[in-house]
């Protein structure tokens, strides 16, 4: 197992390097970072000066070398948006809020998708099942930011259950977490349903029944554990998608100060170093989550041979 984790970590490193290189190349070749670091009124000389100060005139390989060296020292450059602060610190400041949001949202998704999926699988074709499936489909088709606004309109504007603005963290967290969770519940419950139907139709489930085991054990122990395998995979992917994508949108809609929100602001303000940093941090997070998924795979399924 230890060897496997090592291997995956190495793979992860490759990915992070890939991302970093990509960001590096793209930002230097495609745009001119200095253009936005100085006020519009800056002269060309001032720009040139800044450029050489940052070493942007040097040949690319040299720049890259320096870049890697900087990162090695965890110097991700100074953020221009948040004046003078180190990018990494800024990102780490905002990160906990995102983690809160994703954690809360995914827990909600987990709590609801499992029972709903199991219920639907045991009563396929029933009205509950059909309703669930239809709602899932609708949820899949709605863009998440629109869903966010709908939630806001219904619960904040019309029903005034929640208020926009500062308040205790748990009330503010509810709507955005629900917004994250709903489409995930839609997708995940469908997977649970399919997987459970498959498992309940399997030979071993029949054998378990023939053994005289009560149905709740056949469903809850035998079938569920097998269905857990695809579920864990997809749940892991949901978490990754949330981290790497959805938080950006959801945080923007709800003005939630996490790294998604930060990313948008950084990009819009052309804060080049900060953006770079966010992308790298997110890539690292994604790698960590993937490794965790793979490990939990092995825990559930003894057949899996890792390495």
């Amino acid at each position: 197992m230890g060897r496997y984790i090592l291997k995956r970590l190495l793979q992860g490193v490759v990915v992070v390097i890939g991302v970093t290189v990509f960001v590096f190349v793209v930002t230097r070749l495609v745009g001119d970072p200095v253009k936005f670091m100085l006020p519009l009124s800056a002269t060309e000389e001032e720009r040139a000066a800044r450029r050489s100060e940052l070493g942007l005139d040097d040949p690319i390989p040299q720049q890259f070398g320096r870049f890697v060296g900087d990162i090695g020292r965890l110097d991700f450059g100074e953020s221009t948006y948040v004046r003078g602060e180190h990018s990494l610190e800024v990102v780490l400041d905002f990160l906990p809020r995102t983690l809160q949001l994703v954690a809360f949202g995914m827990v909600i998704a987990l709590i609801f998708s499992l029972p709903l999926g199991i219920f639907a699988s045991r009563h396929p074709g029933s009205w509950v099942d059909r309703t669930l499936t239809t709602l899932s489909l609708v949820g899949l088709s709605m863009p998440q930011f629109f869903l966010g606004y709908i939630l806001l309109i219904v619960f904040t504007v019309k029903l005034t259950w929640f208020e926009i603005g500062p308040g205790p963290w748990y009330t503010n967290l509810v709507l955005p977490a629900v917004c994250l969770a709903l489409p995930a519940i839609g997708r995940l419950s469908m997977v649970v349903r399919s997987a459970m139907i498959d498992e309940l139709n399997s030979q071993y489930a029949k054998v378990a029944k023939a053994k005289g085991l009560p149905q709740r054990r056949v469903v809850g122990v035998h079938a569920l554990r097998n269905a857990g395998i695809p579920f864990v995979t997809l749940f892991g992917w949901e978490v990754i998608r949330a981290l790497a994508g959805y938080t950006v949108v959801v945080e923007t809609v709800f003005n939630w100060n996490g790294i998604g929100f930060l990313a948008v602001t950084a990009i819009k303000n052309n804060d080049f170093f900060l953006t770079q940093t966010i992308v790298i941090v997110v890539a690292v997070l994604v790698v960590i989550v993937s490794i965790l998924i793979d490990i939990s795979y092995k825990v559930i399924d003894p057949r899996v041979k890792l390495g």
Partner: protein
Amino acid sequence: MSTVHGTDEWTAQESDALAATEYEESITGRPYELQGAQRGLLGDLVHDKLGLASAIFLVVLATSALLAPWIAPYEPNDGNLSSALLSPVWHGGTWAHPIGTDWQGYDVFSRLLYGARTSLFIGIAVVAVAGTFGVMIGLIAGYKGGRTDRVLMGWVDVQVSFPGLLLAMLLIALVGGSVYTVTIILAINGWMVYGRMTRGIVLSVRERPFVEAAELVGCSSRRVILRHILPNLVSPLATLAVLEFARIILAEAALSFLGLGIQYPGVSWGLDIARAGEHELFGNQWLIVYPGVLLSLTVLSVNLLSSWLRVALDPQEREKRFAATATGGSNAAAAGV
């Protein structure tokens, strides 16, 4: 023929069991499970009806989008404040602005039309570009195998792990947001799923005897690929392309929503939702809702269509299923005679 009670559960179970065996690597949230639910409603008829309705909706939408420059009553960015915030016709407005105007005086109907243009065009364009590239890579990787395969799939693996939305945002910020840049960038982010799927199918198909036979007879690689392998790709690729189409529409909307996609003077539903969200959350919410509903309906129709396409396009599957039920004891066989 005679359908008796119990059919609902059976077909639902069967469809889902079949569908569930096809877990794809990419998460496109495909609604295959819907088949089971729909069949449960009234059998095949309703299923086809929904597919049909979706197809009709999309055709109407596409036609309107195509003809937008001629049928839109106004330019999308042409408004003046004196005609701001007019209500739609059913709330007391006039037919001059059938769905009203926003706070800048822009005609909502025109903007919806042009937004459709943007979404549909980008959807198709990205699928075309990403699909072509991805399929090519997949064919090469699958057919050549060995090191080529490993290298190419390694590339896929690495790129798949990239935080796509963030990178797209970054790129757009650098090159500016227009229909063309958005298309290219979304294609860069989205070709991998075609590559993986193509490669998977090629790998499984080329093991089959008829390919080996073709090679033995002396067919060139290119011929083998084109004549023998490609036809097996058509059906799954078509389904994937349709689902990707839906996903791209949502992706573009999200980017535009964030202000990092289509920007003024371009028109996009996502952009409109963002603008309205900022401005009219506590006011005229319909300005947020209408583009959103249209966007959702479009994606929903595409998803429904893909569900229907899947079954319709797979004659082998249909035939197999039918044959299974056609021979006398085989449903008993299903229970293990």
